């Protein structure tokens, strides 16, 4: 059965998302779009409302599997938008046909198909939208097969757009990078890499300074790849970004997502670079595909953020040593504290304690037991995946349809998404 196969596909995809075997824009976006196409092609739907409901349900399932992969939700919203547009076109056509057949066109002035009409000042007084939001069943049951193909075509176009996105962004590179410029970049992304390599093809001499992007140190790989493409690349530590900023002509960085206010959810460390760029009045340019535009406002800096494994910052062996230090501190303290601290320390600390004390870590480093913690761990090493960069720090956003300013994002959002879909499905919001 086709539907069984489809369910299986969805479950394979969600499992991989949950395990983070698939992550990032390129791995998730086109897969999501293909699944959405399957929904349109394979599921039985008599009315557009049914189709929308189905897309919302599958979409919500995908989003739930990886809420931090914002582009999944965006692709689902794009597909919903395509469906709504097609249905709207159909409804309008049918109405025109029926209006011309009746002599007295006693229709209302507003297009009454509220199927895709979002609230606006324009129709504030015009209609009671809330009741009409999901009507049109009888209208479309006969004509529904007419819009199936256009919807599939629309989704195919979206898939094509995802395929050509890196290329379309890179093609704009020669307009932005001029001869003998010094570019700073951070993080690793296909888009920025292609962008820089495109300039190399023009044989303009330019230099790229790559921040090593701790703790993943992806910068080293980026620098290697750029130098292989004949670009003069310099690798620096993240700490040197501010010092070198005075020599930089432009900062060009990738991002995880662009939020509704024009701010970025970008790899950790980006905010520091953005602030340094602002301090030195260096243009801060962001490369992102349209599907990365997310019509959601962050209500909290921690929304959609991820805490990654602390291992790259603090390795497992070191933790063991630090715990023993914490224990030593507790020993020196009050007697009562000693008992409780010792009691809660488990496996690794006891093992380390059995060997000859803290090895390699000088006593007293990062060993203070933070107040309120009694789990035996003295050191906290959070490793957040993303920074939120406020829109005020961004000079330019280069998308696959051209360059825009963050304050213009709202316009793009109305173009690509329907406001009714911003929070689709029951649990989609987070």
């Amino acid at each position: 059965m086709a539907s069984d196969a489809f369910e299986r596909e969805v479950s394979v995809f969600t499992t991989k998302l949950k395990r983070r075997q698939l992550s990032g824009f390129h791995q998730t976006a086109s897969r999501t779009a293909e699944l959405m196409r399957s929904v349109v092609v394979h599921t039985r739907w008599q009315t557009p409302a049914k189709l929308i409901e189905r897309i919302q349900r599958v979409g919500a399932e995908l989003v739930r599997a990886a809420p931090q992969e914002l582009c999944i939700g965006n692709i689902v919203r794009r597909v919903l938008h395509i469906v709504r547009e097609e249905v709207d076109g159909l409804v309008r056509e049918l109405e025109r046909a029926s209006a011309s057949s009746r002599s007295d066109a006693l229709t209302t002035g507003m297009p009454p198909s509220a199927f895709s009409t979002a609230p606006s000042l324009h129709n504030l007084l015009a209609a009671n939208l809330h009741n009409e939001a999901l009507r049109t069943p009888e209208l479309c049951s006969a004509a529904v097969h007419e819009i199936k193909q256009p919807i599939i075509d629309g989704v195919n176009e979206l898939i094509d757009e995802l395929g050509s996105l890196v290329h379309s962004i890179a093609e704009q590179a020669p307009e932005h990078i001029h001869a003998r410029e010094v570019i700073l970049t951070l993080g690793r992304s296909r888009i920025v890499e292609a962008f820089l390599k495109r300039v190399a093809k023009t044989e303009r001499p330019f230099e790229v300074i790559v921040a090593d992007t701790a703790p993943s140190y992806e910068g080293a790989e980026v620098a290697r790849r750029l130098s292989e493409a004949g670009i003069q690349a310099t690798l620096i530590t993240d700490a040197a970004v501010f010092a070198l900023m005075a020599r930089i002509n432009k900062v060009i960085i990738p991002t995880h997502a662009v939020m509704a206010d024009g701010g970025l959810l970008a790899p950790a460390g980006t905010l520091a670079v953005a602030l340094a760029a602002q301090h030195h009045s260096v243009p801060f340019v962001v490369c992102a595909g349209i599907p990365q535009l997310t019509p959601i406002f962050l209500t909290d800096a921690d929304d959609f953020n991820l805490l990654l494994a602390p291992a790259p910052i603090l390795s497992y062996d070191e933790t063991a040593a630090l715990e023993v230090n914490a224990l030593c501190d507790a020993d020196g303290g009050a007697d009562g504290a000693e008992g409780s601290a010792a009691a809660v320390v488990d496996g690794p600390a006891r093992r380390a304690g059995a060997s000859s004390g803290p090895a390699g870590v000088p006593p007293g480093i990062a060993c203070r037991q933070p107040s309120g913690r009694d789990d035996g761990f003295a050191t906290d090493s959070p490793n957040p995946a993303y920074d939120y960069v406020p829109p005020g720090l961004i000079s330019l956003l280069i998308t696959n349809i051209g360059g825009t300013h963050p304050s213009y994002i709202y316009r793009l959002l109305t173009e690509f998404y329907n406001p009714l879909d911003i929070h689709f499905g029951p649990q989609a919001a987070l």
Partner: protein
Amino acid sequence: MASEKLKNEQLSAEQLRAFHAHLRDEPGAIAAIKVLIDLIQSSAATTIMGLQIELQAAADVLKLHEAEGISIASGCELFMRFVTRTALDFSEYEACRHKILERGEFFKEHSTRARTKIAELGAPFIRDGATVLTTGFSRVVVALLLHAAQALKKRFTVLLTESHASGLGYTLARTLAAAGIPVTVIDDAAVAVGLERADLVLCGAEAVVENGGVISKVGTCQLAIIAHAYRKPFYIAAESFKFARHYPLHQRDILGSTPRGVPQLAPPVGGEPDAASRAPTPLLTYERLTRDYTAPKYINLLFTDLGVLTPSAVSDELIKLYY
């Protein structure tokens, strides 16, 4: 005076009384629209043109209202626009009038609906444990805070300025405290101090102008500037019928209808004003400003019933309506 004449012709004393009654519990724009709908009901006009002239004259009278002139003007304009558009769709006057009244009835409940929507959209921006600073008394802000506390069960505290002259800060404080939200009232002059411990600022507005700035109770502008200096988010909660086709460049552009030069002083703390020592002289004048204009660059987001908007999105909504 021309306006006096119009007042006599276009609005009966009864209608004006009704208007002021509406104003007590509704924003100016809605009160004005209600009056205009009543006017259509009782109108003797037999053509759309006649009706529009009557409405326009009545709107001109309503706009003269001192405190809420701008909000009323935007409400009237929105309604007039709607009448014009509806008129284009009907060839029969009666059918058109009927439709306008039918939708008018629906619209009467709009401000409650809008407030609920804004509360739902804006409340998630209040985090658990946050301190919210606000000024003045805005029904939308109250609805938002109550929604956050009661429906979303957020725990937050509110810092409130006393909103001198009107003293509405105290009314707001009592409302919020009665709903179980911890409130602290501070001096108007202490906002810079208070802001240091606030996490966000949330204010209402009288009108939202074309560039995304807002006209609101005096004190809002300074609060926005301080919030900007402290890098604290500054949010506005306002219904979309407050969107007005104004483009103020300076504070003086919105002073038009505020009473100026009137020495009405509140009694100073600890005694009656000494009238003799405070009497204006040629070199000493008093000004009581009631509203100010906050530029869009100080505003992070606007919570409206059309959605959460950035200031630059406001002009788009206005363009959609008027062009």
